[in-house]
């Protein structure tokens, strides 16, 4: 849209009128100047008449005083000019610069895409289903009309179809030789399998997994009351086969039982060794504690007896008398060698142990238990056992 152009009418002041106004102002300015010149000597910096005439119009005009005009005068001057320019504020601007409003309807009217989409609105009717060809084809088939003709032929066809699609008969015919299980039996079997699933995961051996499945079958058959009836219904050959299978199962279960019993014995032995080690270690610790406490008590008693003897010696005689010296020497001998016979020399033995990050093996525990028991009994075998342990276990060559 082009910018509104201001049309100059006759009411607008012409350039000549503007010049006339400017001349009037110039004359006023000149009068002001002359008055100022008459009164005072105006400064030469002020503009003269020969200067640029356009500046006289409204910029830098002189006041009556002969100097610069005040702000108020400037504002009033500007106001006068504006009123001269615009004069009538109530003039209708449509004739000067018409403004057209932009509405949605106007835009849509010009939009080609919108017209293409909506040009047929209200002119084209929606699809009538009832009169469509598809409906005419569907309806006759949906209506239940008695068909008197070709009934027999259709029935035979239907029977053939039914026989072909009879899945039950197909499945049952395949299962004629296999035993049929009820839904409850199947659910029980699944529950047993779910319960035994951790055992089955642990059984990496295929024989063990087979045995676990076999045990499930055995449990299932034991729960099934029809098992006996089924067995009675079998023929001689089938009975012989079943007999052989049962005998092989018995052999497998027997082997498994023997293995599990051996494993149980090993685990029992391991538990026993560990328990005996723990009891020996705690026993030795307790005895060491008791021994330390008894030593402390003895030291206290001997220390007290020694001091009392020394006091007595001082009271009896001088410090350096022969009797005093002999008693001191005797006491010192007793303290160092006196309790050597009753002292447990092997109880305070320390057993070295290498930290491996896992518990010691059964053999190591057995050796350590022997050492601990010898320490507890204060046996002379402690050094030899300890040496063997260090050479064979701690630092094997």
């Amino acid at each position, binding site marked *: 849209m082009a910018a509104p152009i201001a049309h100059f009418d006759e009411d607008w002041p012409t350039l000549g009128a503007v010049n006339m106004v400017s001349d009037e102002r110039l004359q006023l300015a000149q009068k002001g100047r002359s008055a100022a010149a008459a009164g005072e000597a105006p400064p030469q910096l002020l503009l003269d008449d020969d200067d640029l005439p356009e500046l006289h119009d409204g910029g830098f005009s002189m006041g009556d005083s002969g100097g610069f005009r005040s702000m108020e005068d400037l504002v009033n001057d500007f106001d006068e000019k504006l009123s001269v320019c615009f004069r009538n504020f109530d003039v209708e601007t449509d004739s000067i610069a018409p403004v057209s409003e932009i509405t949605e309807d106007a835009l849509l009217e010009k939009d080609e895409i919108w017209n293409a989409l909506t040009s047929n609105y209200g002119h084209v009717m929606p699809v009538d289903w009832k009169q469509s060809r598809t409906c005419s084809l569907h309806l006759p088939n949906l209506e239940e009309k008695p068909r008197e003709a070709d009934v027999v032929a259709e029935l035979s066809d239907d029977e053939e179809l039914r026989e072909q699609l009879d899945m039950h008969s197909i499945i049952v015919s395949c299962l004629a030789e296999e035993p049929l299980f009820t839904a409850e039996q199947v659910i029980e079997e699944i529950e047993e399998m779910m319960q035994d699933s951790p*055992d089955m995961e642990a059984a990496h051996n295929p024989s063990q997994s087979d*045995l676990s499945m*076999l*045990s499930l079958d*055995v*449990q299932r*058959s*034991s729960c099934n009351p029809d*098992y*006996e009836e089924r*067995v*009675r219904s*079998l023929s*001689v050959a089938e*009975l*012989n086969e*079943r*007999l052989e299978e*049962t*005998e092989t*199962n*018995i052999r497998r*279960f*027997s082997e*498994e*039982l023997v293995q*599990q*019993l051996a*494993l*149980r014995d090993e*685990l*029992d032995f*391991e*538990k026993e060794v*560990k*328990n005996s*080690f*723990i009891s020996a*270690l705690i026993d*030795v*610790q307790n005895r*060491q504690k008791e021994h330390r406490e008894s030593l402390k008590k003895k030291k206290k008693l001997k220390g007290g007896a020694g001091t009392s003897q020394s006091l007595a010696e001082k009271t009896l005689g001088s410090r350096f008398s022969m009797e005093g010296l002999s008693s001191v020497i005797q006491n010192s001998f007793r303290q160092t060698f006196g309790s050597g016979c009753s002292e447990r020399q092997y109880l305070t*033995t*320390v*057993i*070295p*142990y*290498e*930290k491996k990050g*896992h*518990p*010691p093996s059964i053999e190591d*525990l057995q050796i*350590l238990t022997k050492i*601990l028991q010898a*320490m507890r009994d204060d046996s002379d075998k402690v050094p030899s056992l300890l040496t063997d342990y260090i050479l064979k276990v*701690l630092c094997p060559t």
Partner: protein
Amino acid sequence: MNTEIDITYEYYNNDNNNYLICELENQAELEEETRLINQVLELQHTVEDLSARVDAIKEENLKLKSENQILGQYIENLMLVSSVVQTTDSKSKRK
């Protein structure tokens, strides 16, 4: 006439014998079958007992394994703390 009667009697006797033989054979088969059935059922009971025993032993072994594991952990901690046993790591630190 008598020969005919004899023949018929003999024929009748043969049929009877055949019938008896068949009967005996059937009886033997039935006995055999019964014996087999009883044997199968008995062995099946044995299998069930063995299976139950194996399951019980397996469960017991699992318990023992877990107990031994706990005891092993206890022993390891006891040896680290006890004054009777000295670990070589701490000895090297002291040096």
